[in-house]
Each structure stands twice: as structure tokens, then as C-alpha cells.
């Protein structure tokens, strides 16, 4: 297959000037890409990650590139960790405008539901629905001060289901149930709630393609734009858009950022 034409990254500079964002799971993959883009857009970013060895270098790199960033150790399944991330955002940067919940337990290898153990079920629910609840509650008192935004990272699997990862499809769908109800609940307060369903190169995608050598070609072949998204160049700018006034009349929506692979709407 010949190289797919790829346009240059969209300019985001200034779109989030003076704003402050927390991004969970920002130590790598899509979370790191969103943190990069938001920093490039002028936001001060909290890199909330479970492991310092992944989160701290991301914060340091953003600072070295001229951005404002701080790392906070955060296991999103622990309420106190999420609350602390919000506290650090206020202490370091004085406000909180955007909460991005991206962290997720890796979905693992494809297997039918009847072969998935209890521990995996609890972990997936904990990092997705419980953690979304924690992030939403911790952030809302600040988000409502100045037209803030909650962004959840879901998946095309949460829209169309997944035969390979049935549990993952269900939990990503559950997050979409939460976001639509919260959009109705928080709309009158001026707080918007949206989701991104990306397909992008992440450490999890690296593992999946290594385990299944034909996966990448199949995925490209079923994607109109014929490439897999880059976390910083393709996914991050959409998060910036959802956090910025450009999307001020959008709430309760899920944007599939997947090169056009899902066209069901």
C-alpha cells in the first residue's frame, strides 16, 4: 500500500490560553497526545498518571517545550487520588476548566465474555465508570465557574459493540450513558460533557498489532482515511476543540475520531 497522504497538524495555539486541564492516563498514548495538544493550545496541564516513571517525563518534556505542566500521581480508581489531582491543579495553576478522563485498564487479549474473570470485570468497571464518576464529581465545582468542560475517552467499541472485546464494548458504552445524562444535568450550569471515540496508535494498539500481525492492514483497509490516528496530531486537537469555545454549543456528543472507520450515525 502506498503511503497515505497526511495533512499537517492543525494549529491549536491560543485556543486554551489561560485555561487549566487535568488529563488522566496522560503518561502515554492518547492521554499524552491530548496533554501535548492542550499545552500547545496554551493550557496549563496536570499530567495525572498512575506511574511516575511515565507521567513525570511527559510533564518535564512539555515544560522543556515551553508549556506549563505538572505531574500528579493518580490511580483513578482511588477517590482520594482524583480529589488530590484537582487540589494540585488549583494550588499550582489557580483554577480548573477541563477534566479529561482518559485512563483505562488495558482491555487485554480478545476473548468471549464467558472467559473473562471477575477481577478483570471489576478492574474495567473501576477505571471506567467508577473513575468517570470520581472525575466528574471532583471537577464539577470548578468547571461550573467558567463554562468548563468534561471530556470522556470512550471507543468505537462503545458505539457499535465489540466481538473481540465484549466487556470493553460494554464499559465504553456505559461511559456514554453517563455523559449523555450529565450533559442534560449540567447543561443549565454551562458545563459541557462530551466524548471522543478514537482509533490511534497507543501502547495497547502496539500490543494488539504485535499479537495479530494482520490487524494493522485490516484496520487501515477498513478506514476511509487509510491510516491509524496519531495521538498528538489527530486526537489531541479534537480534545482541544471540545474544551474550547469553538464547541460551545455542543454537549452530550461522542465524536468518532477514527479516520472514518465507524460511519453508523
Amino acid at each position, binding site marked *: 500500500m502506498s503511503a497515505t497522504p497526511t495533512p499537517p497538524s492543525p494549529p491549536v495555539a491560543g485556543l486554551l490560553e489561560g485555561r487549566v486541564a487535568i488529563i488522566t492516563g496522560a503518561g502515554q498514548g492518547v492521554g499524552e497526545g491530548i496533554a501535548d495538544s492542550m499545552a500547545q493550545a496554551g493550557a496549563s496541564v496536570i499530567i495525572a498518571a498512575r506511574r511516575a516513571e511515565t507521567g513525570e517525563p511527559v510533564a518535564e518534556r512539555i515544560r522543556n517545550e515551553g508549556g506549563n505542566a505538572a505531574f500528579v500521581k493518580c490511580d483513578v480508581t482511588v477517590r482520594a487520588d482524583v480529589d488530590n489531582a484537582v487540589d494540585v491543579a488549583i494550588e499550582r495553576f489557580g483554577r480548573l476548566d477541563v477534566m479529561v478522563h482518559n485512563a483505562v485498564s488495558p482491555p487485554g487479549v480478545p476473548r468471549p*465474555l*464467558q472467559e473473562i474473570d471477575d477481577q478483570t*470485570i471489576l478492574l474495567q*468497571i473501576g477505571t471506567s*465508570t467508577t473513575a468517570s*464518576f470520581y472525575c466528574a464529581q471532583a471537577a464539577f465545582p470548578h468547571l461550573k465557574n467558567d463554562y468548563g468542560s468534561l471530556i470522556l475517552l470512550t471507543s468505537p467499541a462503545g458505539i457499535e459493540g465489540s466481538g473481540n472485546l465484549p466487556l470493553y464494548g460494554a464499559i465504553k458504552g*456505559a461511559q456514554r*450513558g453517563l455523559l449523555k445524562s450529565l450533559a442534560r444535568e449540567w447543561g443549565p450550569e454551562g458545563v459541557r460533557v462530551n466524548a471522543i471515540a478514537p482509533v490511534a496508535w497507543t501502547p495497547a494498539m502496539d500490543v494488539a498489532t504485535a499479537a495479530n500481525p494482520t490487524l494493522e492492514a485490516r484496520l487501515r483497509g477498513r478506514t476511509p482515511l487509510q491510516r491509524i490516528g496519531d495521538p498528538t496530531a489527530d486526537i489531541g486537537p479534537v480534545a482541544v476543540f471540545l474544551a474550547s469555545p469553538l464547541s460551545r454549543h455542543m454537549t452530550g456528543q461522542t465524536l468518532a475520531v477514527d479516520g472514518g472507520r465507524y460511519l453508523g450515525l
Partner: protein
Amino acid sequence: MVPDPQRRLAGMARRTALIVGADDPADSIASGLADAGWVVLRIDDDDLMWDDHTIAAAFPDLDGLDLVVHARYPAASRRRGALMDLTDDDWRIRADEPFEATIRLARSAHPYLAGSAGTIVFLVPLMASAGGEGFAPMATAAEGARLLAKSLAKTWGHDHIRAHAITLDPSAFLAPDEAAGMAEANSLHDPPLGRVPDLSTEVAPIVNALTTDDFTSLLGASLVVDGGLWMPG
């Protein structure tokens, strides 16, 4: 295993359904299916912690199921509550535990359904896919169930198990005053039929139809059976 039409038409005139959930819509669907000749089994303790042995413990002699209907939403999850007012325990009881139980139910039902080329149907409130102010936990668990149906359809089709979700008007799950507000928030018009469907005489037959050989090619459907109140794009 390919479904045997003769088995359906002759030897299995009395097919067996397991209805999971208390109150409506479970009660009315159970009633409608019983009227249609089904042997209806119930597990209606919504506070039960579901595990892989729950079905076997309730029905030790059961060797197969033609239909499982999930409509399990604990009373707490059917109560309105602003998200900011919920405690961690509230969230656990209203969202995470019901969702977990849904997943465990499906997992434990697999061997019963696989042996009979059966069907599993998840009944979900409109708030799952359209949102509902004050019902974020219920919507979370229910939308998870709706997407579980799609995922199972993709996986279990190989086992000739069919999985579907049916979205119902909020009045199927909520007290009348709560349901009225929800319908109003989700639609600018009244139901074109002038009413929402009756659960036992109009929804149960659709559940029944989904189990028949006329519908073997329908997999992972998300049907909205609300009299036209909400017509998703």
C-alpha cells in the same frame, strides 16, 4: 448448532424463559410471555449479588434456556438524584453493582443459551441512549447493557445465540411523575400512537418474536419500542 425449526414447532411448544428483575417491566413481560405459552422462570431479587452459580442455585434441574430477559434495575437506581449529591455508596448501588450483575448474568447464562440456540434480550430505559437528568447511574448501567447486547451478538452468533436490546419509554421503569418529566425532556411531541406501548400485550410479543426462526438473521438489534416517542438518528 443450527436451530431446528421442527424442535420449535413441535417438541418445544412450551419453551422456557428466565426473566431477571423485579417489578415492571419484568413483571409485565413475564406475564405476556406466560400468556403466549412460555414457561416463565423468575429471579426477581434485584439486591442479589449475582455470580456464576445464581441460575443453577435457583433452578438446579434446569438444562437449557430459550430466552433470557434482563430488566434488573434496583429500586435505588430508579430514583432521581443529582450526580453531585450521590455518595460513593450511592454510585456503587445504583450504577456499578447493577452493571456488574448484568455482565455476570450474561456470562452465567451462556451455557444455558448455547445449548438451546437461545436469545438474550436486555430491556433498557430511554435514558440509556438519550440521557436523563438525575438518572446518570441508571443510564450508565443501562447503556452498558445495551452495548453488551451488541458485543454479545458479535461474539455469540457463532454459538447461535442471539442478543438484542429493547429501549422502552421511561414509564416502563419509573414512577409516573418521574417518567412524565423524562419523556418531556426527551421529545417535543407526544407518541404518534397517542400512548406508549403496553408492556404485556405489545412489548412481550416483540420479545417473543425475536426468539422465533423468522428472526434468525437479526443480531445485535437495538430496537426502540416506545410508540414513536423518540426516533434516534
